[in-house]
């Protein structure tokens, strides 16, 4: 086995193990820490595939941004009360069906090979050989071929931000009156 293969299995085990730990911990902060570990593992997998820019962004956005905000909110919740509450919601059966369907779908792709996802006009996949111009390549594709989806995503985020501000504003006016 080559070093890459060994690293892949180590990182995959890290991601899956951490993900399982995330959903089985009763303490929410412990769950968040395991989720961070899973996200670090995903960044490692990106790095292994030569997508170094994605790896860096994964860590900065998911861990530095989103998980810090998660922890910020979780820290204000009394942990001991949370951990005594029921852990699973009532939607057990829909969730099981969705999970099984997703698993079958991923398994189907894994069996048939990723080439079935190809569609005409898709950007050339970047192999590990193109390591030196990785960030530049991502930027070029994002701002030329995929400009419309990119701009739509940013409008979606803008809407979400405005929505968050509107919601927090109305609540404060109610408390004042």
């Amino acid at each position, binding site marked *: 086995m080559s070093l890459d293969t060994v690293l892949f299995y180590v990182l995959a085990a890290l991601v899956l193990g951490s993900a399982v730990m995330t959903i089985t911990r009763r303490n929410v*902060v*412990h769950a968040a*820490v395991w989720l961070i570990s899973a996200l670090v593992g995903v960044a490692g997998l990106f790095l292994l595939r030569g997508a*170094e*820019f994605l790896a860096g962004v994964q860590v900065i956005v998911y861990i530095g*941004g989103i998980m*810090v905000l998660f922890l910020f909110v979780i820290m204000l919740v009394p942990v001991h009360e949370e951990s005594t509450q029921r852990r699973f919601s009532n939607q057990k059966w829909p969730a099981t069906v969705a999970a099984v369907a997703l698993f079958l779908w991923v398994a189907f792709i894994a069996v048939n090979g990723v080439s079935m996802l190809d569609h005409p006009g898709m950007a050339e996949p970047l192999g590990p050989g193109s*390591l030196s111009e*990785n*960030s530049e390549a991502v930027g070029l594709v994002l701002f030329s071929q995929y400009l419309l989806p990119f701009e739509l995503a940013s409008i979606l985020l803008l809407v979400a931000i405005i929505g968050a501000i509107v919601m927090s504003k109305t609540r404060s006016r109610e408390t004042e009156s």
Partner: protein
Amino acid sequence: MEQLLANPYVPPLILTAVIILVFPLIAGYIVLAERKVLADLQVRLGPMRVGPYGVLQPLADALKLMLKEDVIPSQSDKWIFWLAPVLSTFTALSAFAVLPLSDRFFVADVNIGILFILAMSSIGALGLILGGWSANSKYSLMGSLRAAAQMVSYEVPLGFATVTAIMCAGTLSMQGVIASQLERGVWGAFDNYGLMLIPTVLFIIAGTAETNRAPFDLPEAESELVAGFHTEYSGFRWALFFLAEYAAIVVISSLCVTLFFGGWLRPFPNVAALEMPLNTAFPAALFALIALGCSKGVFRQALAGFRLVMAALTGLFLLVAAAFALPAANELMIGLFWFGFKLAVMVYMFIWYRGTFPRFRYDQLMDVGWKWLIPISMFGLILNGVVQLFARG
């Protein structure tokens, strides 16, 4: 030996080991410098007892911290309490892997060097947050809430300033940024007809806030929160947090030096006439001057042992000065010297702010971050982009 050094994995590993072993000592001496400079600003003497003029104080402090009892609060979350200082120190020291210490001393020159440093500094914030939460104490929790809010807010202007510098240099690699400054013949701070000064100033302000240093040291404001997020930490675990803080200062200063002040290049790298005075005469004269200062101490100290220490320091600095006069040794060390010199100026400035500016109030901190720094940094980014597109040859 030659064969061993030719192996691509061996020199980075040696350098990594050297950094991990030497950095705690350097951090200790930064602390001593900080105490001495602050004392000077406040017309005091600072540490004077351990060794002549207190020069052995860091060693005594390190010994004390190692021998102290390691207290873990009984109501704390033991796992997270253990994890937090490790996470902080690990990420802060990891960022050293991409710092270009000189043209030949660097662990790795990767294409995402700057992103890597930002990523490590954002994971380091988690150490502060988790450490404050796990101690199960109100002061610690308040400290980490402030740390989280502050680091998230100031990451944005820091990011914008960095993006402006990256745009100017055209690469994410640390050595590439320095190479582009050499090629353009101007430091990043003065590029684009001086407009790059906007992101430079913003980077220094946001960097101070990002490392939780005065006047932005609200997470550990001792007058309100005892010691903030590390209130419940003691002994070696506290020392790890301390080490992480100083490592973060050195990393942010190094990033600033690399992006805006030419990294290991000497000033005016394209003027050949300055090669001799700046690369040989200046370091040799600087270290000779330090040696002269130390030699005065040999006569002033009363104790024989202290005199011996001062004499040894005099000899050491004279030796360094002589080494810079030798062409072979000079060529090896000059990049390291200029990087270290610029770094020392930056770290001195960090200490200077701490002695000069009063601490911000929390609402002022958020005002400065969101209402001033972020709009100005966006404006600076757009302005520099336009200038670069139309006016730069």
